C-alpha cells in the first residue's frame, strides 16, 4: 500500500473518530453510545444474560459440537450463496469518492486491493470482538484466544468471498451473461445440491429419520446425518475447514486446523489478486453496459414496472409505483420463490414421511410469516429510508406530507403483504393436524383469512414506525447505502429496534383485546369461523391507527427541514 493510501486510511479513521467524539456533545448521540456501552457491559459481565448452560452442555458433547460446526459451515455456505444472488447490487467495492480519486491516480491494482482489505479490517475487528463477547459466553469454548482468532478468520473469509464473488460476477456479466441467468444458475445449483443430498439420505443412507421419531441421539444426530454424509458432506468441506479453528482445544489442534483455513484464504486472495477484472467499474455499470443490448435482443429489463402508471390520479401513487420498481418486485419474488421451491423439494425428499415433510414446511412458513410481520419492516427499506437522500426532489413535489408518507410506505408494505399471504397459505396448506386443534379445510381457510387481514396491517404499521424514525431522528437511521458502524451506531440500532417493538406492541394492544373479546364471545357458537370475524374489528383499529400515524407523519414531513439534518 502506498504512503498516500496509508495516510488516507489512518487520517480518515482518526477524523471519523474525532467527529464521533465531537458529536457526543449532542444528547441523542451521547445517549446512544451509553446504551451501546451498557449493552456491551451487560453481555460481558453477564448479570442479565440468559442462562445458556443447556446450550453450553449441548455444545460440550462431541456429537453436538460437530453438529454446531456443521451448522456454522452451513451458515457460511448460505452467506456465499447470498453473495452470488445479491452482492454488488447495492454496495460497490469502492465508494464514489474513492473511485474518483484513486482510480485515475498512479496506484497499482494490488495497492488498491490492500487498501480495501485494510479498510475492511475496522468492521471485521469490531464484528470479531462483538461475536467473541456474545457467542463466547454461549458455547463451551475451549480457548478464548483460538475462538477470537477463529472468528477473525471466518469474517475475513466472508469478506474475501464477497469481493471474489463480486469480481467474478462482474467478469461474467461483462462477457455477456445476463444477471438473471446468473441467478438462475446459482439457484439451479442449490436445488441440485439440495435434491442430491436429500436423495442420498432417502435412498442410500438409511439412517435418515423423521422429526416425530427422533433417534436416541436426538436432533444433533439427525442434523449431522444430513450434513455429514453424501453430497452435503463434500459441499460443506471447505466451509467446515474455515470454522474448525474456532473450536480448537490446544495449540497443536489449532495449528492443524489453521493450515487448511489459511490455505483457502490464500487461494481466494490469490485469485482476487491475479484476476484481471477491473476494480474501478462497478457491477451495476457492467449490468448497465450490457443492459441496452440485452433489452434490444431479449426484451430484458432489470426491474419491471408493476403496473402502467396513468398520468391522472392521486400523485402519491407515483411514489408507490416507483418504490415497487425499486424494491425489485417480480425479480426479487421470482428469486425467493425459486429458492423456497428448491428447499421444499429437498425437505420432501429428505423426510421419512410426507407428514414429517409437511410439518417442517408448514412450521417454517408460519415462522417466516411471523418473522416478516415483526421484522420485515426493518429489512424492506424502499421507502423514506432510501429516498431521504432525494429529499430536495421530494420537497419540490406538490404532494401533501401525508401523500408522501403514504406513497413511500406502501411499497415495502405491499411486498411484505404478498410474502405474508403466500407464506400463510403455504403454512395452512402444509401443516398437519396437531393435538386437539380443529384443522379441517374450513378451519385452515378461516386461519388464513384472519392472518391475511392482520399480518399485512401489522407490517404496514411497522413500516410507518421505521419511517417515523427517519423523519424524527434522520441521523440515527441507516439511509440508502450507508452502513454506520461502532458502539454508537449499535446503541442507536438498539434504541430504534426497542422503540419499534414497543410501539408495535402498544399499537397491537387494542386490536388484540378486541380480537380476543370477539373470539371469546363467538367461539362457542361459531368455532373457528369466528376467526375472520374477530379479525375484522382488530383490522379496522389497525387501519385507523395507520391512518392517524400517516396524518401525523405527514405534518412532521411538511415541517421537516432538510437543511438541519
Amino acid at each position, binding site marked *: 500500500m502506498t504512503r498516500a493510501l496509508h495516510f488516507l486510511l489512518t487520517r480518515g479513521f482518526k477524523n471519523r473518530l474525532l467527529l464521533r467524539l465531537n458529536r457526543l456533545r449532542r444528547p441523542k448521540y451521547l445517549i446512544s453510545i451509553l446504551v451501546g456501552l451498557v449493552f456491551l457491559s451487560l453481555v460481558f459481565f453477564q448479570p442479565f444474560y440468559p442462562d445458556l448452560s443447556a446450550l453450553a452442555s449441548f455444545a460440550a458433547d462431541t456429537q453436538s459440537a460437530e453438529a454446531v460446526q456443521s451448522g456454522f459451515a452451513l451458515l457460511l455456505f448460505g452467506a456465499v450463496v447470498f453473495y452470488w444472488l445479491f452482492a454488488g447490487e447495492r454496495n460497490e467495492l469502492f465508494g464514489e469518492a474513492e473511485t474518483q480519486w484513486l482510480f485515475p491516480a498512479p496506484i497499482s491494482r494490488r495497492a488498491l486491493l490492500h487498501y480495501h482489505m485494510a479498510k475492511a479490517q475496522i468492521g471485521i475487528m469490531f464484528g470479531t470482538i462483538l461475536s467473541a463477547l456474545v457467542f463466547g459466553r454461549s458455547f463451551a469454548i475451549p480457548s478464548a484466544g483460538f475462538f477470537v482468532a477463529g472468528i477473525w478468520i471466518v469474517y475475513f473469509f466472508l469478506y474475501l468471498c464477497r469481493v471474489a464473488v463480486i469480481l467474478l460476477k462482474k467478469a461474467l456479466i461483462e462477457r455477456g451473461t445476463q444477471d438473471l441467468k446468473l441467478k438462475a444458475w446459482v439457484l439451479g445449483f442449490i436445488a441440485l445440491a439440495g435434491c442430491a443430498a436429500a436423495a442420498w439420505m432417502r435412498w442410500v443412507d438409511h439412517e435418515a429419520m423423521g422429526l416425530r421419531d427422533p433417534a436416541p441421539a436426538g436432533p444433533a444426530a439427525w442434523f449431522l446425518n444430513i450434513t455429514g454424509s453424501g453430497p452435503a458432506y463434500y459441499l460443506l468441506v471447505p466451509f467446515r475447514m474455515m470454522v474448525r479453528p474456532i473450536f480448537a482445544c490446544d495449540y497443536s489442534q489449532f495449528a492443524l486446523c489453521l493450515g487448511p483455513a489459511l490455505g483457502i484464504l490464500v487461494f481466494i486472495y490469490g485469485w482476487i489478486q491475479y484476476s484481471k477484472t477491473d476494480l474501478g467499474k462497478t457491477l451495476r455499470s457492467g449490468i448497465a453496459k450490457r443492459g*441496452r443490448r440485452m433489452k434490444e435482443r431479449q426484451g430484458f429489463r432489470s426491474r419491471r414496472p408493476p403496473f402502467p402508471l396513468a*398520468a391522472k390520479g392521486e400523485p402519491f401513487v407515483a411514489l408507490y409505483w416507483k418504490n415497487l*420498481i425499486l424494491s425489485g418486485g417480480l425479480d426479487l419474488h421470482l428469486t425467493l420463490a425459486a429458492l423456497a421451491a428448491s428447499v421444499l423439494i429437498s425437505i420432501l425428499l429428505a423426510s421419512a414421511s410426507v407428514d414429517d415433510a409437511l410439518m417442517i414446511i408448514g412450521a417454517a412458513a408460519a415462522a417466516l410469516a411471523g418473522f416478516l410481520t415483526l421484522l420485515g419492516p426493518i429489512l424492506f427499506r424502499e421507502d423514506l429510508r432510501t429516498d431521504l437522500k*432525494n429529499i430536495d426532489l421530494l*420537497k*419540490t413535489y406538490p404532494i401533501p406530507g401525508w401523500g408522501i408518507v403514504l406513497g413511500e410506505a406502501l411499497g415495502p408494505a405491499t411486498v411484505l403483504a404478498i410474502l405474508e399471504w403466500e407464506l400463510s397459505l403455504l403454512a395452512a396448506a402444509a401443516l398437519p393436524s396437531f393435538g386437539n386443534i380443529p384443522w379441517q379445510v374450513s378451519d385452515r381457510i378461516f386461519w388464513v383469512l384472519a392472518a391475511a387481514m392482520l399480518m399485512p396491517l401489522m407490517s404496514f404499521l411497522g413500516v410507518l414506525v421505521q419511517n417515523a424514525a427517519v423523519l424524527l431522528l434522520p441521523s440515527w437511521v441507516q439511509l440508502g447505502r450507508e452502513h454506520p458502524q461502532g458502539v454508537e451506531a449499535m446503541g442507536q440500532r438498539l434504541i430504534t429496534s426497542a422503540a419499534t417493538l414497543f410501539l408495535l406492541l402498544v399499537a397491537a394492544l387494542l386490536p388484540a383485546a378486541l380480537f380476543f373479546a370477539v373470539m371469546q364471545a363467538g367461539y362457542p357458537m361459531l368455532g373457528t369461523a369466528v376467526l375472520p370475524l374477530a379479525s375484522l374489528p382488530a383490522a379496522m383499529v389497525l387501519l385507523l391507527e395507520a391512518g392517524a400515524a400517516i396524518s401525523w407523519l405527514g405534518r412532521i414531513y411538511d415541517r421537516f427541514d432538510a437543511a*438541519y439534518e
Partner: protein
Amino acid sequence: MIEVEGLTRVYHSLKAVDGLSFRVESGEVLGLVGPNGAGKTTALRCIAGIIPPTRGDIRINGYSILKDSLAAKRHVGFMPDEPRLFEHLSVDEHLQFTARIYGVENFAAKARILLDELELSSQKDSLPGELSRGMKQKLVIACGLLHSPENLIFDEPLTGLDPQGMRRMKGTILARARAGAAVIVSSHLLHMVEEICSRILILKAGRKIIYGSLEEISRNRVETEGDLNLEDIFLRVTGNSGGERS
C-alpha cells in the same frame, strides 16, 4: 410571477440569506450571481419550497410558499445543479412518474417533444447508470419542464453540457421566457448571464448588493468607473478585483 419578500434563512448562527427581496415578472429572466457561499442555492431552495425560510415570504403566481405550498409548487419547475435521479427508473419512466406527480394531460406527446428538444429520444429506455452527466442534467430539465410551469428555476443549468447542449439550453430558457415564463437562472458563467438575462441580482454574504437590468447597472457605474462588463462589475462589487481590467 415570483415575488420574494424579506427572505431570510439562518443556519444555526449563520445568516445564509439576509432580507432578500425581488420580483420576477412573466417573460423575464433573472440572473442570480454571487461568489461561492453567497447564498444563491439557499435562496433558490427556499423559493422552490425545499427548505422553509426563517423569515419572509415567497409568492409564486400569488400563492405563498408558506401558506399554500402545494398550489405554489404546482407552478414551479426546479432544475438543481446536481442531477438527482431514481436509479432503477428509465428516462421514460422518470417522465411518466413526473407526469403523475403533476397530473400532466397528454403527457406522452409532451414528453416526446421534450426528449427530441433535449436530444434524449434515443435514450428513453436507458437507466441513469447508462447516462452521462450531461444527459442526466437534460433529463432533470425535461422532467422540470414537462408540466409547462409558468415559473422556472435553474441552478447552474449549463453544468455538464457540451457546447451544442449549452446553446440549446440557452435557447430553451429564452423560448420559455418568451412564452411567458418567469425564469431565475443562477450561474457563475457571467457571459451566459449577460447573454440571456433581462435582470441581474448580485448576492454577497446573503445580501442583495446589486439588482437591475445590465444597462441600469452599467449606467450607474459608467459615470464613476467607465465602461464595464458584468464580470468587471461583479469582481468590483464582490470585493475580488484580482482579475480586474486596468
